[in-house]
């Protein structure tokens, strides 16, 4: 197995275990999605309109939960230094960790959203659009979140700053992701999927470099 897949499978295994945060993200997602109708009222027509936005925001917040430990856990016990010394470049390491986060957290969130959309009385076209938009968009969440995690890896309470850094950068994903659901519901042509895909591809392509640069500067001292 190439080093990339070794690192990828290690990170996935760590994430899905008890302290890893993958299951926590799913539970958090479900809790937030349950809370919103309680706050907004039981009007099903209203809930169907806001379903795309609410599920997208909840998915982003749930994915953010486990992001701050992405690099920090390895930094604290010294494994990040060892990984940095390995023949695997830091850029590939960052990509492996981001991919692991998406596979362990982003993808399950996408699958769960199809079930939770029922709580909002979202139509089947809307639900299909939601699942596809999350499928396309959650890699961007993991990628940009990974850059934020690398920037904050040496901060003690970095988990509090991470959302402040990452959420403004994720605004396009939320805008186009929920926009795609609304457009599908209204039967309009859906350029939002294309924008979302472009945003995702761009962030997945560029984030390993930014994340690696951040890891390097934090390991340098």
């Amino acid at each position, binding site marked *: 197995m190439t080093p990339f897949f070794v690192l990828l499978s290690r990170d996935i295994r760590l994430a899905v275990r008890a302290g890893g945060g993958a299951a926590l993200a799913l539970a958090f997602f479900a809790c937030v999605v349950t809370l919103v109708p309680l706050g907004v009222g039981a009007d099903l027509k209203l809930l169907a309109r806001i379903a795309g936005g609410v599920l997208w925001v909840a998915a982003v917040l749930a994915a953010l939960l486990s992001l701050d430990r992405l690099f920090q856990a390895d930094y604290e016990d010294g494994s990040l230094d060892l990984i940095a010394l390995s023949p695997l470049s830091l850029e590939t390491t960052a990509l492996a960790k981001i991919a692991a986060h998406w596979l362990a957290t982003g993808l399950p969130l996408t699958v769960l959203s199809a079930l939770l959309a029922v709580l909002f009385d979202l139509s089947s076209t809307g639900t299909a659009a939601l699942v596809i938009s999350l499928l396309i968009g959650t890699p961007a969440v993991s990628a940009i979140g990974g850059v934020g995690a690398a920037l904050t890896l040496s901060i003690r309470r970095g988990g509090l*700053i991470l959302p402040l*850094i990452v959420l*403004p950068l994720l605004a396009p994903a939320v*805008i186009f992701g929920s926009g795609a659901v609304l457009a599908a519901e209204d039967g309009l042509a859906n350029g939002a999927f294309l924008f979302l895909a472009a945003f995702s591809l761009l962030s997945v392509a560029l984030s390993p470099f930014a994340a690696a640069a951040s890891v390097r*500067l934090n390991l340098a001292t």
Partner: protein
Amino acid sequence: MSIFELANPKRFMEVSGLVLPWIAAAAALALVVGLILGFRVPPDYQQGETIRIMFLHVPAATTAMMAYGVMAVASAIGLINRHPLADVAAKTAAPLGAVFTALGLITGSLWGKPMWGAWWVWDGRLTSFLLLLLLYLGYIALGSAIEDETRSARACAILAIIGAVNLPIIYFSVTWWTTLHQANSIFAGKIAPVFLWPLFLMMGGYTLLFFSLWLVRIRTEILNRRARSVMLSRAVG
């Protein structure tokens, strides 16, 4: 004299000390004259007297964007050339830029209520400008959370450069999306000259104000660092 000679703190203190009073005076002059002209401008045929908010709102918004651009460039120089002074320049620009952004948002909101009937709308320009404020706040938070100076500066530099993608989004938002906000009209030549000159004076005044405050902050930070190293060397004995 190349700009990189200013990277020497001593040289920077000399040059900025000479230049600062002039920039500050020019800023004051531009602002005063701009405000006077702004009050004497005739009311707009469509917007009436509220057009005068433009002379406060547009310069604040352009200065906020310029400040971010300056911060991103200083960050890049700090990352590539490893000039500590560039790092200081970037970090000190952030709170100033954040305040100008907040001013732009507040004055815009005050203008929007009489004109559009709403304190806020979620169109492209307002949303991306609000995101600019959040980017500034994230930058400031990251900078103050990391204790080591060099690491803090480098991390902030990476964040600033990533966030710089928002600047063209703000600028082109009015052409890309349908919006209530005024389309780009300065370079498109769509403003009457009687409004254009006070606007340019205020924009110049705000920019000079930013630069004078920025120079003061950089000089203060340099003095701070000198004081700290003196204290440290005294403590070590």
